[in-house]
């Protein structure tokens, strides 16, 4: 015969972002460390060699931090004005930085004074980088030029002045020793081959370019400027692959995860977005306190460092699963005890008596099965409100059985107070509201004659009333907003959209409802 059917607990679709592998991965960082710098942080660069220290350029200083240190290990402060774009060489021994006065300086990591100084730019140098042959430096400056320098001799090899505006970003190819890219405020990104006199490729970004990035394969170019992040296919001659518009303020910095699977973009809108480089969809997003200027990821994504306009450096280190100290195992019965008789193969002449599978019922189901309605309700109310779905499901079941009134009645002060506390907490939640309003009505009907006997209960009743009144106000406001929007849509829509409109407004209403109720 059919067995007892347990109460169906409705599962509601999770609102907001779904939990994916990405969210798990990107959330697995410790609480951030905040370090106050002297000015806006314009560049963060990780040393390519362990222990992966990072250089932070802010104001007129360059600080080198260790991974877990909150104090700088080393400081380079030989700048008269702001320093820009301190960048490590591939071997992690040299550091190059531009400056407001137009001078590019080269530092030894262990030294203090500049090893070399490259003069030639007439205005602030905002971008410098090593070519991958390690012996040349690329720099871009506000005098619209980008220059190539020979490190040992400190001489200018070539100068390009193709940009029509400030050159504010650039990067060098890791594969080709002669290739580099610069982005400028003239809305273009240019690819240069140092063996030629002119740029080899120009792509039109459409906005002042704030950051450029080459994929490790060298085939794809990412440019950020305005609210857009654009991916270009270099091998196809600079064809636009995809244009991403996920920020609502200027995107200032770009960064690739160490696997190359994810692209990160930081923006003045205080968000860092993580894109999948396969689908170019946002898979995760970080929020920060201030507008983001610079962003860097340590190798293996061990650390995320974000520099902001207010001079705060936000450092997040990855959590590591410390293998928990195994408790000494209790002496348990051996394996043989458990398999005893279970691996017996029935012989031909054996009768096979199957043991019925015992279904395990929850406590409330057991009580409901034996029609102990008040106890069942008590059990689900006791559950510390961690699973309001179950509580409401049991209430619904009781209502269906017509015994909700019985279950609610006859409670003493403490029991009633638990019930009211639950109501106060969840009555306005849209998914529970229909049922809980009914419960509230019943409680009021039942306990009306005894109101005024207990201060605790009276207080809770008042609180409930307050919450409900507030909710009614919200709803009226929402309806007003909806009315306004309907009017707007009505003026906007043409003949075709008559039916689509309803869909939209419904959706917006729902979103708004969620926003207010949460």
């Amino acid at each position, binding site marked *: 015969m*059919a067995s007892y059917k347990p109460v169906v607990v409705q599962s509601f679709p999770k609102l907001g972002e779904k939990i994916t*592998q990405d969210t798990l991965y990107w959330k697995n960082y410790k609480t951030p460390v905040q370090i106050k710098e002297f000015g806006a942080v314009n560049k963060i660069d990780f040393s390519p060699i362990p222990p992966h220290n990072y250089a932070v350029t802010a104001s007129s200083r360059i600080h080198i931090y260790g991974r877990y240190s909150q104090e700088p290990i080393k400081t380079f402060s030989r700048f008269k004005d702001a320093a820009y774009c301190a960048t490590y060489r591939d071997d992690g021994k040299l550091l190059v930085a531009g400056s407001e006065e137009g001078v590019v300086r080269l530092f030894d990591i262990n030294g203090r004074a500049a090893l070399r100084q490259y003069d030639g730019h007439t205005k602030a140098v905002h971008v410098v980088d090593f070519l991958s042959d390690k012996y040349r430096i690329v720099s871009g400056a506000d005098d619209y030029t980008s220059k190539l320098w020979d490190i040992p001799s400190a001489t200018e090899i070539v100068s390009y002045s193709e940009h029509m505006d400030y050159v504010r970003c650039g990067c060098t190819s890791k594969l080709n020793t002669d290739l580099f890219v610069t982005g400028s405020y003239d809305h273009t990104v240019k690819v240069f081959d140092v063996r030629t006199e002119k740029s080899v490729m120009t792509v039109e970004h459409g906005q002042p370019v704030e950051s450029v990035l080459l994929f490790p394969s060298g085939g794809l170019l990412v440019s950020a400027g305005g609210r857009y992040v654009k991916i270009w296919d270099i091998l196809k001659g600079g064809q636009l692959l995809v244009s991403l518009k996920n920020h609502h303020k200027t995107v200032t910095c770009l960064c690739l995860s160490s696997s190359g699977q994810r692209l990160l973009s930081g923006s003045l809108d205080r968000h860092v977005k993580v894109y999948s480089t396969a689908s170019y969809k946002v898979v995760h997003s970080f929020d920060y306190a201030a507008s983001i200027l610079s962003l860097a990821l340590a190798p293996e994504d061990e650390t995320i460092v974000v520099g902001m306009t207010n001079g705060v450096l936000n450092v997040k280190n990855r959590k590591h699963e410390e293998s928990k100290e195994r408790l000494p195992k209790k002496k348990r019965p051996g394996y043989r005890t458990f398999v005893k008789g279970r691996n017996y193969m029935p012989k031909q002449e054996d009768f096979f008596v199957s043991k019925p599978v015992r279904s395990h019922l929850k406590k409330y189901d057991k009580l409901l099965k034996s029609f102990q309605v008040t106890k069942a309700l008590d059990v689900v109310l006791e559950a510390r409100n961690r699973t309001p779905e179950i509580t409401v499901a049991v209430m619904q079941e009781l209502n*269906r059985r017509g015994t909700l009134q019985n279950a609610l009645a006859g409670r003493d002060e403490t029991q009633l107070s638990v019930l009211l506390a639950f109501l106060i907490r969840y009555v306005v939640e849209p998914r529970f509201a229909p049922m809980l309003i009914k419960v509230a009505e019943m409680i009021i009907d039942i306990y009306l004659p005894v109101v005024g006997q207990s201060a605790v209960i009276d207080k809770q009743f008042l609180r409930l009333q307050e919450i409900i009144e507030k909710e009614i106000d919200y709803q009226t406001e929402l309806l007003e907003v909806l009315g306004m929007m309907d009017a707007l849509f009505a003026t906007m829509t043409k003949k075709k959209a008559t*039916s689509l409109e309803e869909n939209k407004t*419904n959706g917006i209403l729902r979103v708004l409802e969620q926003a207010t109720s949460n």
Partner: protein
Amino acid sequence: MQLYSCSLDGTIKLWDFTDGILIKTFLVGYKLLAFYTLAGSEDSVFIIIPKKIEDFLDWFQLVSVKLPKTPDQEVEAKELSLILDDIGQSPKCTAFGREGEYVASVRGLHLLVYFFKKKKVNRFPLSATSRKGANNYFTCVACHPKEDCIASGHKDGKIRLWRNFNHKREYTFSTLHWHHDVVMDLAFSVEGTSLLSGGVESVLVQWRDGSDYRKEFLPRLGSTIEHISASPDGTFYCTSHTENKITIIHSNLSVSAVIQGLVKGSDVKTGLVVDPRTKALVLNGKPGHLQFYCLQTDKQLYNLDIVQQEYIHQIGLNQVDLVKAAFSAQGNWLATVEQREEKETELELQMKLWNYDEQTQSFTLNTRINMPHEDHVTALCFRDTDELEDGTPILVTAGNDGRFKVWVLVNDSDSEKQSMGWSCDFVGSYHNYPATNCCFSEDGSLLAVSFEETVTVWNSDTWDLICTFCHPPGRIQNLCFGRLSCSKYLLGTTDNGFLCCWNLLTCALEWSAQLNVMVLQPDPLSENIAAVSRLLEGSDLFVFKPNEPRPFYIQRNVCRERVQWAVFIPRDVPDSTGSEKHQWLSRSQLYFLTETQDLLTFSTKSAEERLTPSSKQLAVEESLPMTPFSLLLGKHRHQQRSKENADLDTAVVQSHLPQDSPAIKELLHTPAHVLPSASFLCSIFINSMLISKENKSAGEVVDEVEMDSEKAEDESDEDLELTEMEQDINPTEFLGEITETKLSKYQEKQLRKIRRRDYSWVAAL
């Protein structure tokens, strides 16, 4: 083993129930309401009859009847003697005690005990109500088989065990109380050690030793227990239930077998739906379940639990109703809508979408949608995507809230798990009128939705409104598209008695007819559309094609009740034997359900044919010893009959496949030494082999339309009722009679022709 049966027509019949032979009929002449026999007295039985024959007042008597011992088949039994007067009419209200010493009967608030030896009646009254609000009315009674003990069931669920009742004053009773509602039936086990009781709760309670503490339960038997009985050998109990079910239960309270017919539940709200996979009829079954009922075998295939909630058997409880069900074209998806209406304003709706799982061979829940509409869902339909297998299924629901919603299957799987779910794709409305019906055209390109008095047609790709029809004012009740060659027509019926057909190409009304159509059902395999109309009394069936306003088949008065639902069930093998008149039944068969939950169908087969596999006559014939004499006699009779109405016979034979014609069977299966001469057999044999081509060419048809009405409550085929219906307007009927003689001449000629041929091979058989 013999069996008595009594009926309201005033006869008691004695049967040999293993063979199914009627042995004797006793005529009593009263309406017999209940019937009892005692082991001790073979020659007299006890019956309950109304006091007067004509007056059907609430006055019944228990009388004993002496059954005369005469060899005749029909005997009049007039020797009645009154035992108890003014008793309950239900058989459950009277019980005979230990070895027939006394009889106990209950009515209202009285227990009457009649002692046969002392010829004395003891009357034990109970007060109507007690302080605790008990309801002491008696409902049933049972007597202990070994002791002087009577158990009585009461309306408030109490069971009283009466003892010492041969004293008028010093009687005692003890009370057992578990049931919260009426005790429907009581039964003692054979030894009397345990008492069984059952009621609305559908729990069989076994009380041991009449003690309140030693009780055992068998819960969740499905529906209200109506009757309980214990087998004489004590191994089995048997309960019968309101939902057309008998449960056989082991004496250790474990279910041994369930005999289940078509569940006759409450109102059939889902209508009749065909499962495209099994071709089973799907409709409301047990509460909250869909039953899959195989029409060919008259068996329930399985029950699909839709609501998935514990059913509380309690009268007056607001249960969740399953109101809508629809299958996708291939049967991969099933959509169901359940609702629960507490008050006018409080409506709980849930739509569930079920996916057919090939591995488990059953439907699994895929998506559950709470409140798909804000008001009742009036219709739902799938878009048939026959041609493109990979086309995403689309479901449309229409609701009283003035919307129709389009639901699509979306892939919301992410990197970890594959999952498909349904979500709303489009919401459409038309001036906020309640949407009453929706249906897709055959190719799925158009969706028609009716809003009150207007039919709207939508493009199913872009969901644009294409056109509206609102010709005759009146609420649209049914809506369907034409099929195949008539797919350019859209049909609708209104509540003020119009059937309209619109042409979708010209967007104009093609024709309309004044017909109060209750049910409009298109045949999925042909252009035919069946409409059942209702006038003042009786329902009429019209079958027509949308391109022709004149129906090609009319059947007046198909049944007296209102027809609620109808459905065409595709045949596995197209039936080509049907006459021209029944051509419309060749590919699918029409079933319809009336208000009283009778499931009826149209059959092309003749009455005889319908009967042969199922009738009891067959059983009788088989049980008779097969003597050569009976064979010969039977053959002779058969031949005579065939001579008498040759044409009718050939018509019957014609629809048979030649192999299973009785004549050939006999010829092949009887031993050669008992066969009559070949010349004697020849004509029968030839007759049976005749392919009645000439019948058709002559336009001869069997004019009766046979309708087997499978009463829904009837269990098996033996209860099949057969009603023959004369058609009142049928000119071919007379034609058939006129051509009869000519035909036989023609046949004779044919026969003669055939006889000239060489039949030596017959002898070789």
